[in-house]
Structure formats: C-alpha cells, structure tokens
C-alpha cells in the first residue's frame, strides 16, 4: 500500500456533486476528485490515489531534495568530518 502517482492538473469540472479535475500522467489524462486539495490550481502537480488527489507535490521541496541527492559526493566529506568530531567528543 499505497499506489499513488503524481500528475498535472489540466482543468476542473463537476461530477456526482464533487469537484473533479482532469489530471495528466505522462500524456494520458484521467479524472480525479479534488475535494481533498481545495487550493490546487491548474498546472500544479498532485498525488492521486484511487481516483482522489490526496496531496500536492511541493515543487520547491522536490527540487531541494533532488539537489541534495545529486550533490551527495561533496556532502560526504562534510558528514565524515562531523561524525569524526562527534565521536571524538564522546567519553
């Protein structure tokens, strides 16, 4: 559990009394219920599970995380230094 995939909001409509949107997943679109992400807008990415958007993807946070991962080589030295310092500090 639980299969949820990020997709881009294309537009909004109503169905069965709930707010829906067409979501684009790599070029195919499917509708999803938007009631749980009321502030999501066209162009934003949401995480969709069983036809419901359950969360927005935070673009800035995603970029930060990815950059950190990419720069892992450089960061490794900083951590090694910090860990050595910490262990030397223990009695």
């Amino acid at each position, binding site marked *: 559990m639980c299969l949820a995939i990020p997709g881009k909001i294309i537009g909004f409509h109503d169905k069965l009394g709930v707010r829906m949107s067409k979501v684009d997943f790599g*070029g195919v679109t*499917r509708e999803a219920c938007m009631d749980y992400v009321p502030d999501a807008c066209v162009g934003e990415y949401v995480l969709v599970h069983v036809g419901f958007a359950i969360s927005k993807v935070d673009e800035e946070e995603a970029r930060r995380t990815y950059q950190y991962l990419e720069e892992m080589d450089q960061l490794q030295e900083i951590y090694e230094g910090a860990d050595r310092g910490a262990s030397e500090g223990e009695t």
Partner: protein
Amino acid sequence: MALAIECPLPVMGHKQVVIGHGSGGRLSAQLIAEMFLPAFDNEILRRMDDQAVLNLDRARVAFTTDSFVVTPIFFPGGNIGDLAINGTVNDLAMSGAQPLYLSAAFIIEEGFPMDDLRRVVESMALAAKTAGVTIVTGDTKVVNKGCADKLFITTAGVGLVPEGVRISAANAKPGDAIILSGTIGDHGMAVMSQREGLDFEGALTSDTRALYRLVRAMLDAGEIHALRDPTRGGLAATLCEIAKTSGAGIDIDACAVPVRETVKGACEVLGLDPMFVANEGKLVAFVAAGDAQRILDAMRALPEGREAAIIGRVTDRHPSMTIVRTEIGGSRVLDLPFNEQLPRIC
C-alpha cells in the same frame, strides 16, 4: 398455401445479424455474396468450394491457427479484424515464412449490428492487402443472443519457409544479441483504456501491424536464431518461454527497453508493469552477435522497426532464467506471469 418463412430483405437491408445468416440457406448465401466476397475477392475464393486447393511447390510449409475474441471489438488503432489478419500473418512470419493464404471463420452473436460487421470485414480486407495475403476460404455461423460475446473470429494461415531458414525458440544461444522491434505495452493499454470505468484519454493506440516485411529485411541482413511476437503475457512471457525452451540464460537491460511515455503513465496509474502487457505489432529477435548492428540498422530503416533496440544478451550463466538489470543497477528475476495483471491500489 404454405407461407414461405424467409426474409425477403437483402442482407444490406438488415441492420443486425440474425440467426438465419448462419443457417446455410439463402440469407447465409446473401451474407457471403454481399459482405465477404466483395471484401476478400480473389480467384480462389470466387470458386466457392468448401476448401482452397493451393499450389505450394516443394518448400517447407508453415501452418498456424488462432482465435480472436477481443473485447471491445473496436479500440484506438484498430479492431478485432486487424488483429485477426495481422496476428495470423505474424505467427507465420515468426518462422521466417512468407505468409500466403488465410482462412477466416466467423461466429457472430445474433443481433450484432451489420454496420459493425462491415467495418470489421473491410479492415480485414485492407490488412490482408497490406500484408500481401489472400483469404481463400471461410465459414460463418450465427448463434443465439448470449451464446457468444458479439463476434469471434478464428483463422488459419499457411506460408512458405525459404530454403536454409531455420528459426526456433530452441536455437537461442549464449552470445546472441536480443533485439526488440519497438515500444512495448501499446496494444494492451489501448484496449484497457476502453474498458468501463477507466476513462483514459489520449494517445493510447494499438500497435497492430503485419511484420513480414520487417522479418524479410532482418533475414537479408544477418543470422536470426529465434523470433517471437510478444502478445498475451507481454515481453516478459516471451523472454521466459524462450529461456525455458532453449535452456539459455537471458540478461535484459531495463533502461534499453523502449516504452511510450503515455503507456508508462497509464501503467503507473494502474500499477501495471509494461513488461507484462500485450503487444500486437512487435517482435523479439535472438540474433548472431556479429550481425546485430547490421540487423538493427535494417530494422530501423523501416517504419515498423524505427524504434528497434538491443535490449539484452543471451548468457551461459543462470540457464533458463531471465534476469533484468533494473534502472538503478539492481537485479530481478523475470518469471512467467501466472494470471492476467489486474489494476491494483496497493
């Protein structure tokens, strides 16, 4: 005065297929004369015998049969008729044979719209013409409503295998390069997108097409050991079958397997793996290592092989097993799918 219980309307006047169209009487004759004959027209068929007598020289004959029951009948990129012709042609072509003659038997559910039947038949005529085959014999039956799901088509096909061509799953050998002719998962996802409740929109199209021209070009370019078209069960099933039959081990590079972005998107949403999704216009070839580049170039020169790629190699390690090197450098065993993949939420 006895009432003649026969329908006076010509076939084209019926909006739906009725039981009478399959009972061998006048309605049947009308259906054949007005629907099938004009579409499949050829000298042998015009003779209207119960069988077709064919001149086959002394070459080795490839012979195949297949049934087509796909639902829905019409899907983006084709219909059951296209599958029937292309599927049969491809089964023959996978032995290196030139496909020549097909039979087509129809089981039609009472009430099936005549316009739909015409669309299917016309597609078959066009597909046959494109593939260079003739439909030389056939049969029609109509069953009561509920006794068949709209339309079933059964085919048989014969072709001639050229001298010196020996292609078989058992022939795959260590060192062979494994070439895939194009993107996987297109057909299965196109059909699935039409099913109730899925409502996918956009760019999911069946890849149904005849592959003999491609095979011919490949045979001219180099040595082919094994060939198969990955239909039900997808690429995974085909690789596993060949590994088991030949006893060879197969190594696949996941990054080298081409998948359309839209097919990937649809698979991700439903939790399906494109490796297990059906194809109808692709082939996998096991070729002599030294000929691989030449064969690949010949494939890429044709539209049906434009996206061909080398996706792996045959190895003498892990016999009979197919192992995939994953996108992140790990490894996983590929196994024959037991059942049809179902969409999942977990």
